[in-house]
């Protein structure tokens, strides 16, 4: 799996860190650190995180699920 978070979009809602704590971690109250190539055993956690992100900042490749190909078409913070 390959993951990237658009940290311009990210507003620190921390849903990913709640739902996939072995992949995403808050560093302080609002900054996010993550493993961009998590182990496959985290697949379901990553899918949860991708769907739960309120600003759709997480892109994943290789986690299965057609819906993850969702490309965001809304301008930043608009």
């Amino acid at each position: 799996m390959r993951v990237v978070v658009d940290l311009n979009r990210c507003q620190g809602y921390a849903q990913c860190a709640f739902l996939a704590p072995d992949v995403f971690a808050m560093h302080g109250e609002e900054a996010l650190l993550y493993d961009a190539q998590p182990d496959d055993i985290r697949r379901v956690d990553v899918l949860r995180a991708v769907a739960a992100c309120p600003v759709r900042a997480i892109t994943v490749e290789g986690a299965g699920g057609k819906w993850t190909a969702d490309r965001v078409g809304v301008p930043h913070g608009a």
Partner: protein
Amino acid sequence: MALDGSLERLRREGHIVVVGASLAGLRAAETLRTEGFTGALTLIGDEPYGPYDRPPLSKQVLLGRVPPDHTDLPRHCAIDARWRLGVAASGLDLAAKRVALADGTSVEYDRLLIATGVRSRPWPNELEACLDGVFVLRTRDDAARLDHRLKAGPSRVLVIGAGFTGSEIASVCRERDLPVTVAERGATPLVGALGSVIGEVAARLQHQHGVDLRCGVMVTGLEGDSAGRLRRAHFSDGGTVEAEVAVVALGATRNTEWLAGSGLAAGPRGIACDAGCRAFDIRGIVADDVFVAGDVARSPHPLFGYQFLSLEHWGNAVAQAEVAAHNMISPGERRRPHLWTPYFWSAQFGVNIKSVGVPNMADHILISQGSLDEPRFTAAYGYQGRVIAAVSFDQAKWLEFYQRQIEQAAPFPLPFTTVDRRPEGMRPVPAGFPDPSVPTHGPEVTVSGHSPTDQRVTFTPA
């Protein structure tokens, strides 16, 4: 779709070459494919790796939480490209539509996208730069080398330059419990990007986390031992510091040397292009077949007086790559301007710093929410009576409001009250940016006037 024959042919069977196989190059290639380009696509990159993400290098990678090779960028779609990795572009022949490569081969194109980005500005004294223990941080290999050395537990790390990258490196060192000295020529860390009012907050964070911060000094020399290992640095105030590792974080320099003599308006400030990402030649005329995107581009922005902006921003690379790719395969009337509002983030000392707009154009700043002391706050920057930028420390959820103020050219100071307004937020104060002619350690945004052929840049390092 009424396309003229040549554009239709280009979309169907043309050859598009992308020089630069990082974030902007990848996103451009994906956009070309999703918008229906079915011809041949070649991506050329000087590093031996496919596209990977750089921001984690100075954060989770250097913290040792994520291996350096765990930063590959996900693909949005299959791009079916020919990859020429590990070989740099070395020249461009506009008339022959040909890119020369460092291995002596060349590639012809119908349309070219230049996304060669930037590289770390090296320590200017080459002998000193070669000392064992002197590092820069830009690539995955840089991060791997530096991480390896930090693991060995050096007695002290010297960070030269307290821009965003330098400050992030210092933060990581403290988190790894390594003694660290930061030398910054300006009055405070981040002064070039955010001004001294915010820079003072950054300085306090460094002090609170045990960084030995030295502002207003230059590093005048790096001294090695007989085995060629770094052991000491000398400062302009006569002081010295013993350090086994020095990280040179003096900002970036644009990868445009390979375009020397090509006729494109390329120089140390980047490659000038129009808002549609078409490159200018040295006569100030746009080239039809050459496009530019990402850190290496300078393009005029209507929100900022149509001045040329160079933005070393992740989001800019993505947005500009998408616009450039779209325009490369679209007829004139369907082309789009690149109107992205600059957005930026940095994580250091456990604080999330985000900015929107162009802070370093500002003259004044107002702390509109929260307090510099905590430090959790949002501040608005003003330029000639309008809002031009905003910055937040751990208050990112408010920034989209300020983005709208910037986009609507709202008056500054903001003529209304807000939640969490403190006494310090009652009136604006000078933002404290250094004289633009004095170089700072890598402002991420460069505003460089109206001329597409502006070649002037002076940098007097440390």
